[in-house]
């Protein structure tokens, strides 16, 4: 189902005209309301009048997470506090939290975008949806909640932390949709399976986001739960979940580009790259009032397609993420993404075993150990077979990342699970 056909199925020309009109307005707004942006533009010798359409966007300066930190807490807000109705903040694992503010109209647009995502996933007002993202400063819980309410679905605000209660209610309430992180969904699936409850659920769709996951992992969870699993993308700086989401054809994530203008630039030169080429995703908020951001560098690596989708939507689609440039590990000079390890492990057949990467430095040499949980299907009573398994995993990973690894087999469920973003890397080098 398409929630907003007039916007989601616009012709490219109409979309460009709309984006141009909105960009001019957004640039005027930040220039006149945000001193930080005004100074940045003045330093480059740009005035709002220089921006006449979307094609002029490359004249504008980039914004990074550092800009948000430098102006902590409200320095980039473009609306007076009386118009701000909500604040969210990122978890901020390094340095200060990143703070964002929303006007009532911002919340409405956010709810509209999430409703579009849910509708694209086949969710309607006849569905019951469990929102199992954390509620609070994190945008996941309330973002998904408002969108689902806007759609008219029955919302069960689970939050995270009590998987048993979640699965019980999933069965008892006949829950048909869930919004949570992909790793938490896998944990839920494992729990249902262990309790023999897989055939008691009525779930048909999952809308998962807030952390990178692989296509194989998506297919795995679809198969395990007999559902359609969707990849919802967002970041609090731009809005929260719902910036983009894949439709039932799963051929890239539709960006709500009437509100968020996407660009793909080379991470090195920051020059735009051609459609289909991989680069860093950059967003400009076109309608945001609270904290409009110009050319915000997401650090997410992807490519873009502007071809019309089989579902009928004409909105630009971004491909599955190749990783985030900031979860990229440099091990012995080699760039390694955890998603590569995950994809390699999936080549072992079947589903992904749970894993943890331990990066360390021994005698000035980086080491990578990958701990893999030995599920029953991998387990053999013969040491020789287990040693072969270890070698095979090491080989597959080495092929994928070009780096020798030590593989250690560990017991099932012995690696720590997280309720929020999955942690697959322990980098001990930072402690030195």
């Amino acid at each position, binding site marked *: 189902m398409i929630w907003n056909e007039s916007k989601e199925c616009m012709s490219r020309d109409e979309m460009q005209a709309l984006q141009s009109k909105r960009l001019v307005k957004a640039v005027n707004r930040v220039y006149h309301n945000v001193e930080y942006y005004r100074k940045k533009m003045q330093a480059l010798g740009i005035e709002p009048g220089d921006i006449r359409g979307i094609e002029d966007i490359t004249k504008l300066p980039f914004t990074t997470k550092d800009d948000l930190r430098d102006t902590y807490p409200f320095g980039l807000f473009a609306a007076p506090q009386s118009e701000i109705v909500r604040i969210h903040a990122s978890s901020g694992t390094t340095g200060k939290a990143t703070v964002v503010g929303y006007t009532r109209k911002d919340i409405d647009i956010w709810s509209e975008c999430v409703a579009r995502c849910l509708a694209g996933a086949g969710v309607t007002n006849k569905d019951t949806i469990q929102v199992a993202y954390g509620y609070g400063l994190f945008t996941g819980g309330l973002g998904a909640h408002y969108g689902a309410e806007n759609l008219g679905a029955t919302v069960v605000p689970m939050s995270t932390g009590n998987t048993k209660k979640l699965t019980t209610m999933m069965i008892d309430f006949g829950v048909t949709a869930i919004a949570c992180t992909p790793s938490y969904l896998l944990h839920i699936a494992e729990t249902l399976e262990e309790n023999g409850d897989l055939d008691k659920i009525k779930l048909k769709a999952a809308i998962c986001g807030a952390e990178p996951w692989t296509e194989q992992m998506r297919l795995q969870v679809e198969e395990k739960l007999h559902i359609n699993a969707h990849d919802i993308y967002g970041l609090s700086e731009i809005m929260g979940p719902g910036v983009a989401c894949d439709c039932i054809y799963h051929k890239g994530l539709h960006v709500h580009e009437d509100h968020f203008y996407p660009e793909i630039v080379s991470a090195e030169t920051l020059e735009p790259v051609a459609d289909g080429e991989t680069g860093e995703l950059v967003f400009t908020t076109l309608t945001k009032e609270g904290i409009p951001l110009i050319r915000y560098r997401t650090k997410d690596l992807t490519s873009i397609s502007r071809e019309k989708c089989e579902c009928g939507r004409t909105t630009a689609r971004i491909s599955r993420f190749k990783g985030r440039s900031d979860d990229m590990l440099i091990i012995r000079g080699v760039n390694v993404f955890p998603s590569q390890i995950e994809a390699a492990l999936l080549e072992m057949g079947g589903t992904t075993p749970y894993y943890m990467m331990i990066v360390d430095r021994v005698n000035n040499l980086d080491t990578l150990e990958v701990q893999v949980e030995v599920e*029953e299907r991998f387990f*053999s009573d013969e040491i020789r077979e287990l040693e072969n398994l270890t070698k095979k995993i090491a080989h597959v990973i080495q092929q994928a990342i070009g780096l020798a690894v030590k593989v250690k087999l560990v017991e099932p469920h012995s690696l720590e699970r997280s309720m929020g973003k999955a942690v697959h890397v322990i980098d001990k080098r930072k402690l030195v």
Partner: protein
Amino acid sequence: MFIKQLSIFIENKAGRLQDMLAILKDNDINLASLSLADTSDYGVLRLLVSDPEKGKEVLKAAGVSCRTTDVLAIKMAHKVGQLQEVLGIICEAEINVEYMYALATGKDEASIVIKPSDIARAAEVLKKAGASFVTQEDLANI
């Protein structure tokens, strides 16, 4: 004549063996014999127990990776050269022994537990040579 061995994946960490055995004890499962194959990181605990299927079930419920494997337990008199004789029969049939360990079954006889590369053929040649085997019932009554 095949008996079911319970094989358990176990990390080389303090207390893990004890944990596994506690699960079996709590479910009233008796151990007849065991062997532990170890590497620096992990080991495989191989057990002959009174009720292997129940053992597997309770261990699985506790989230442990385990499986049952068919093995042979051949009875032997306490006599010099008995084991060599048994192995001779298997070797002659060009069957490999993946692993083996002992099982104490009584005062007058002992048994050897063998996982041959081809269990059906191993059982056949041993039977033809007149060997007798420990059965699942025997294990339940130890």
